[in-house]
């Protein structure tokens, strides 16, 4: 039992657009310039996380350089599926979070890819940056999220009432279908687990915990709300399984793609969805209580 690939793609497209639209509508309510510090900070985080993960993968994991770089890039970037689950969850339990988080999601997709390539190649001239840029910026994820953001921004809440039934009312149903398929895909990665062994499992759980801590810390620094802090932790903790694998396959072909997919899709995605999201919310609460008093 698998969803036809075209349906899976359609469902992803709807989710990406919905998240973008939702974010765009909210974004319109506040002046753009006030967001610039958050945006810059998050980009720095996107560069920092893979740089921190890389030596661990190289030294402790004993991975080849290309593999270590590729896995690091996966964990520096984000998973839209994980974010969508968090959006649905926070909606249900009515936790507020800042409206520009979808924008931060978009920003976090890219830096990790650049760092991943640099870690694997150094500043080599061989990398065709133009085709990497093409691959990344014209990829489904960024085009649809950004497109949704801009449309939502321009149209505003009233402008979107007419598409609400498709993009907002159906959101959770569509997310359910998406998760069903993701579960099937993730479970097909378990064979890989057996092969690459314990380190991948441990890394796939410890790395998101560590990233969530950093995300929480950054959320506090940026004075986000509890929900916003938790969301930033979730973004930090999530690992890419669409944009980064595609980019790495082309830019760092000697990296083994099943290795990184096994980690991000077979371990970290289910961990985050089932345990991570509520955990990071608790973490945000505790840290807020502690630091903000």
């Amino acid at each position, binding site marked *: 039992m*698998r969803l036809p690939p075209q349906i899976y793609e359609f469902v992803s497209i709807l989710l990406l657009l919905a998240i973008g639209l939702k974010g765009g509508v909210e974004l319109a309510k506040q002046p753009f310039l006030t967001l610039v510090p958050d945006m810059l900070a998050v980009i720095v985080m996107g560069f920092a996380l893979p740089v921190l993960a890389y030596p661990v993968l190289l030294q402790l994991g004993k991975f080849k350089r290309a593999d270590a770089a590729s896995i690091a890039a996966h964990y520096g970037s984000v998973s839209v599926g994980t974010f969508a689950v968090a959006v649905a969850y926070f909606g249900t339990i009515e936790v507020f979070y800042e409206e520009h988080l979808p924008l931060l999601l978009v920003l976090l997709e890219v830096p990790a890819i650049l760092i991943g390539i640099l870690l694997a190649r150094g500043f080599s001239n061989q990398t065709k940056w133009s085709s990497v840029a093409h691959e990344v910026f014209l990829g489904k994820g960024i085009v649809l999220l950004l497109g949704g953001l801009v449309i939502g921004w321009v149209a505003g809440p009233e402008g979107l009432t007419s598409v609400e039934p498709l993009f907002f009312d159906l959101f959770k149903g569509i997310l359910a279908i998406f998760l069903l398929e993701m579960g099937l895909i993730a479970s097909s990665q378990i064979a890989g687990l057996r092969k690459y062994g314990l380190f991948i499992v441990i890394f796939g759980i410890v790395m998101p915990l560590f990233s969530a801590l950093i995300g929480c810390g950054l959320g506090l620094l940026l004075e986000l709300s509890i929900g916003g802090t938790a969301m930033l932790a979730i973004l930090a903790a999530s690992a890419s399984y669409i944009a980064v694998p595609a980019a790495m*396959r082309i830019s760092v072909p*000697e990296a083994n793609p099943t290795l990184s997919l096994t980690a991000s899709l077979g371990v970290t995605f289910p961990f985050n969805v089932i345990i991570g999201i509520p955990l990071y919310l608790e973490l945000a609460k505790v840290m807020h209580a502690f630091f903000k008093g």
Partner: protein
Amino acid sequence: MNTSDQYQRKIVTIVTEAAIETQLSKDLEALQATGYTITDARGKGSRGVRNAGWETSGNIRIEVICDTTLADKIANYVKEKYYKNYAMVIFMSDVVVLRPDKF
């Protein structure tokens, strides 16, 4: 059919990862192939099962009709550039075409 209308050419078939379709097409054009035909495929080989379930995890099957010289050139170029890091199989065979100017 008058045999004088039939001309010997080669067909090079490449089965490889869908992820490199764009790159490979550009390579073929750069090598001066007059065209190519692509079909989506799945399969199994030394690098395990590959099917179209997960995004770029499917295969493509590319066919290029050309003369022997170009066929060898394409096969060698693609082999050098991609064999090491990508799931790939290349094979060649003889075909007869009707319009020699096309290939």
